[in-house]
């Protein structure tokens, strides 16, 4: 019964996000293709050893064009999932399904996070593959490690937008957006590669707090007067 309910929920979530997700998939593939062509172009017009010097010594991030892509993805998936729910009180109907409401909310965000994670996985694999095409293995691993905070940005973007969308009171929405923006700004402080290697586990642990936190706006929605 519960499994059937969950699969029904996932189907409903998929129907809500499918076009946005497919659009994002196209956008990600397009950006990754652009990155591939941009790096290829660099190696066509410049000496390869100079590009390696820029990358290793001057710490230029040739893959920086994709840094905000996960963030945009997270926000758009959240909007696709919860934007329509907040119109015309549909969210209240959704909360009346015969399943614990907190599990219901977590299954929604779990599905959304999974959809974002699939695109993040695509980014990570493609980034490694693209960089490894023109640079030694170490540089490809370094690019992945450097991009991890950006992927975490997708998580924060998704949960921040979800909190703001589910929240019934406008001032509290601003608070959630402010908190998410404050967190996001911490993830783009780099001046070169792998500078988050040591602090990233703490930031990930902090980002996990969004999982329980997302229950609060739903609770407030349900109990609003």
């Amino acid at each position, binding site marked *: 019964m519960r499994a059937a309910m969950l699969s029904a929920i996932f189907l409903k979530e998929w129907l809500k996000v499918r076009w946005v997700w497919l659009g994002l998939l196209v956008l990600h593939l397009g950006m990754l293709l652009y990155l591939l062509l941009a790096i290829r172009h660099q190696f066509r017009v410049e*000496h*390869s*050893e*100079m*590009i*390696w*010097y820029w*990358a*290793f*010594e001057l710490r230029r991030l040739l893959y920086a064009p994709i840094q905000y892509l996960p963030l945009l993805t997270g926000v758009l998936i959240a909007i696709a999932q919860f934007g329509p729910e907040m119109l015309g009180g549909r969210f209240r109907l959704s*909360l*009346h*399904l*015969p*399943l*614990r*409401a*907190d599990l219901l*909310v977590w299954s929604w965000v779990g599905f959304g996070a999974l959809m974002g994670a699939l695109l993040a996985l695509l980014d990570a694999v493609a980034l490694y593959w693209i960089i490894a*095409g*023109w*640079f*030694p293995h*170490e*540089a490809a691993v*370094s690019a992945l490690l450097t991009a991890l905070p950006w992927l975490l940005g997708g998580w924060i973007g998704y949960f921040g937008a979800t909190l703001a969308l589910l929240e019934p009171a406008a001032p*509290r929405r601003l*608070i959630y957006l402010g*908190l998410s923006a*404050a*967190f996001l700004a*911490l993830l783009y*402080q*780099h*001046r*070169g*590669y*792998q*500078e*988050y*290697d*040591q*602090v990233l586990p*703490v930031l990930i642990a*902090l980002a996990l*707090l*969004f*999982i*329980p*936190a*997302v*229950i*609060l706006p*739903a*609770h*407030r929605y*349900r*109990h609003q007067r």
Partner: protein
Amino acid sequence: MTARIARWSLLLLTIVLLALWWPLLKELLFEYRYGKTDLFYSPVIERFVYKELLGEGHAFIYRDQDANDYDRQTFETLIPFIYYKNMELWGKLPLQLAGQSFDKAQIQAERQVLELKPGELPGHAPRIQLFPLLEANPGRARLRFPEDILRPSEQLTFINSDHNRIDPELTTRFTEALSEAGFVWPVQATFGRVSILKAFDAGFFLLDRAGQLFQLRRVDGLPEITPVPLPEGLEVRHVKVAENKRGDSLGLILGEDGRLFLLGQADGRRTAAGLTPLALPGYDAETMALKILFNPLHRTAIYANQRQIKAVAMNRAFEPIARYERRMAMGEPRLVDRVWQALVPFSLDLRDPNGRYLRLSLDVHALAALPASAVALLLAWLLLWRRGLRFLAMTPSLLLVAFTGVYGLIAVGLIPPEPSDRAGAGDLGRTALEPGAT
């Protein structure tokens, strides 16, 4: 229950973010305008002299160690080897000092600056372990980058940059040469200066598993390996390579025990020679930036952290002749620092002034912030009382504010307890069909 956990997750998130942004905000609003003191040893008055910014605007002071003040031009004439171009302009060359005469060419030939900053040390900055080994004898005016890069590990692997493939011939040639020189694999650390804008190329210094140090150069395409003679018991922490035209040194060697040595150069052959110990009392390479200034008469080592600056003036044989230290103007506690600390019980620093890694360091000043925390507690109580909470219901929030001060007050103000918490009303931990659910 889950709604309470949700609220407390948000409270925790808010507090940590506030603690992280607090020092960043201070840095943005009240940054140090000028930074560290400029300290020199004057060969004219044989005293240390310094330049510091005090207060707003261009309130620089030019002072010697005995607190005598100078105007800017006089100050510059006290360190004529630094400002030798001004000396030339003012008709003061050649200089007559210590019974000797120094013209522009002599000064230029003897001038050199060696620097070692904490951020350069291994472990203080990420570094992809790939290094371009330049041709040391390029047969042309400038050095140029090779079309391959060196991966020092179990062997010396060369990777061609045009094809991104290993060059087996170069790999074998250099690996075998290093093995024959007695290198114990694998490479533990690699040190060098990656640049083509330098006087010559000293190659890379490779530390082996046995703690031996070897200089590796590429000369006419062939490996040239020079073992570096290390003093007994010295474990190498870092080698700062600094190729320069003066030709008597190749840089600095820092030991794991904090000892510092000047790495000599063999009679202008650009290969490593003996080590000269530098006696620098109170030098901590992890936190202090070091400069060694060379001029025709003296060598002056100047090293400073964020508060204290120290200097040792040495003769040409690196024997100390004078020492000096002082707390810099930027090291004096500012009113804004005290106020900032008194407002919050702790803060989290993301930036490390001694490296490129972002790190979280906790700075606790709970005692200084006790009054502010007490006020925050009172305000939190008032806030919660006005929202109709009974004492028992508000206790967890008050405890949070007691420990986290203003951060906690802001967090509780932004995310107060829900009305349902007070009434003990429904939670999301049940289905809508259960009794009590909306």
